[in-house]
């Protein structure tokens, strides 16, 4: 390798290193200065395969329900969530289901059970996102309530009894 090429490599390397260093420090600074960014910065594909950003629902009382068609407790609680959506939808409640499953299975299930709130699906990305929301063991169902600002207000692992869910939703719909 000629001296000139070494010099180019060296220059690129130095720029990359310096840039990385600057970026890391800039980010640290930002993290300290600004409020924590909303965890709603993720996006998952809808049943048509189009990516949907979660922060599109920011401003509503958003309930993310992580589920799968192969998961009996998930399937069991789904009708309750539909009822709650019917009841409180006009007051700003929005259920969104995120399935840890294949899109075909989910589409079939949604059609069969006439699920009327938005359903997204994914696989490993969903698992990683659940981890971010505090679901360490990755088990389903897992439900997270976000206030209109996008902050997490409640999480529930396992089947969520309808009365409990309704109480939490009511407490956050009423401005305090």
């Amino acid at each position, binding site marked *: 390798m000629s001296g000139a090429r070494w010099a180019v490599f060296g220059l690129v390397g130095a720029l990359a290193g310096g840039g990385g260093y600057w970026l890391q420090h800039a980010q640290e600074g930002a993290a300290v200065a600004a409020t924590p960014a909303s965890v709603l910065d993720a996006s998952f594909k809808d049943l048509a395969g189009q990516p949907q950003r979660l922060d599109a629902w920011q401003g509503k009382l958003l309930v993310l329900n992580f589920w799968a068609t192969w998961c009996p*407790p998930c399937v069991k609680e789904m009708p309750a969530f539909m009822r709650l959506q019917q009841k409180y939808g006009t007051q700003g409640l929005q259920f969104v289901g995120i399935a840890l499953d294949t899109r075909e299975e989910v589409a079939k299930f949604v059609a069969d059970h006439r699920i009327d709130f938005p359903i997204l699906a994914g*696989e490993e990305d969903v698992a990683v996102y659940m981890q971010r929301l*505090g679901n*360490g063991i990755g*088990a389903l169902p897992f439900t997270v309530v976000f206030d209109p600002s996008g902050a997490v207000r409640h999480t*529930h692992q*396992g089947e969520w009894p309808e009365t*409990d869910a309704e109480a939490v939703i009511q407490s956050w719909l009423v401005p305090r």
Partner: protein
Amino acid sequence: MATRVTPLTTGGLLLLSSLAATAGPLDALDGGTPARREFLPPDEAFVFTHDAPGAGRLALNWSIADGYYLYRDKFRVDSLSAGVTVGELALPPGETKDDPEFGPVQIYRHDLNLSAALDVPPGMASVELQVSYQGCAEDGICYPPIKKTLSVVPVATGAPVAALALAPPAAEAALSESDAITARLERDSLPAVLASFLGFGLLLALTPCVFPMIPILSGIIVGQKGQVGPWRGLVLSGTYVLAMAATYAIAGLAAGLFGQNLQAAFQHPAVLIGTSLLFVALALSMFGFYQLQLPSSWQTRLERGSRVGHGGNLAGVALMGSLSALIVGPCVAPPLAGALLYLARQGDPATGGLALFALGIGMGLPLLVVGASAGRLLPRAGQWLEQVKYTFGVISLGMAVWFLGRLLPPPLTLALWALLLMGTAIFLGALEPLRDAASGWQRLWKSLGLALLCYGTVLIVGAASGAEDVFKPLAPLTASAASQGGGREQAFTSVKGLPALEQQLAAAASAGRPVLLDFYADWCIECKHLERNTFGHPSVQAALDDFVLLRADVTANDAADRALLGRFELFGPPAVLLFDDARAELRAHRLVGYAAPDDFLSRLRAAYTP
């Protein structure tokens, strides 16, 4: 039975379980709701283990926590290696659970053992399998499908045991021998195991491991008072071999059960010095300075007790057999390591002990032949017998030097060899003038003596110039040219303990370089051979050019050393482990024991040829 699974990669969805340690940072926000139940991480709810595959079957085990279950119809085993087929999983009938959503489903609770046929083309070193399963907790959660990637070492299925046992070890070199042997122990019936180990013993008898025992035994027989007939020779050698085999079994049991490195203990300086003194004593008796036997009071007591003539001698012979097993024999050969690994894994002392005993008997069979024939081959009495005795005396002194060589600085050992050779030369009459009427024999002895004298002189020169190898005494004087030419120093980085190794492996992985890890100890003769002959060989050095070379010196045999050996299920040096550039050990290609440069190179090529 089960060995804890170490998944190479935790597939797909299970990614998150490895991160499970991070507690939900949002728990604190859980205000005003019913207390959340704690659920187990998937690997604790469903503890998965697998056994080494045996007899062409793969055995998978689950231990399912109370209140958790696995679905019967969600089990899958797939081969990730081309040409390998996995048969249907044998699924026992499960418990029927009436699920309100899905209707009746079959589930398993508590302990579950499944097996599947595993068809592996011959010569395949390791097989990658993916096992997936899925389950839920009674209290309303379900786990995503769990995928585990396993790397298993297959065992040849079709070949009859006898053929395998008698095939040269090279035929099995494709899999790590000791692993294959462990697998065989786990699979075969007891008679088959014993036959195999007898065969392995016979093979070992043809290696330098056992050679030193031949002069010892011959020496014992020749040193007997009076004549030794074939029958007496057989009894003596039988006693020796039985004692040797029993010692192998007992020492192996102790090592396997307690995980201690007895070999290291028997390489203690006190033991080595004691043994070499024993050999000097044996030599002196050969030279006729005295008759080697137990004190007469002991002898009479033993004879009275056993009512067998020469009972005292038999006890002495047995003692020599035990000592030989412990000190002469422990080249950590694959069969020995395999049997020890089996012992440590299974904790089945009976099978392991019997296998080691069979190994010892196999090693001793040629010695029995030597013993039985000694009476016939060796002269009856007179001048001849004296000469044979002297010969064995010299050999015994050589053994003493060989033992001390593990202890002394190499040049000093060289000087001792020189003394031995020159002394022998003098006794052969190297410096005495031949008379005109001298017989052909006398002339022959004198020439032999002169040759020994010359070589002894060369050894003295070598020792004085710091040479280390008896067969290359002038290396320091001739090396200057060579080392300026192509000779490179192998740069082994020493590692101590697991954390240091992990660090080195990580560094090598990020540099994308393969790693060779050499387990070494000062007391390990085979390690020194490996270092000098194999790692010192120019073509091996060239082949290892790109490698990160690590050396774990386990001379101290302390806790860190034992932890490191234990991590790789090794019982002692020498062992050479190879890692790919992603930190994974190529276990099928590990080398236990010594390998000559050519053998080593072909192993290296096999390990890194995709």
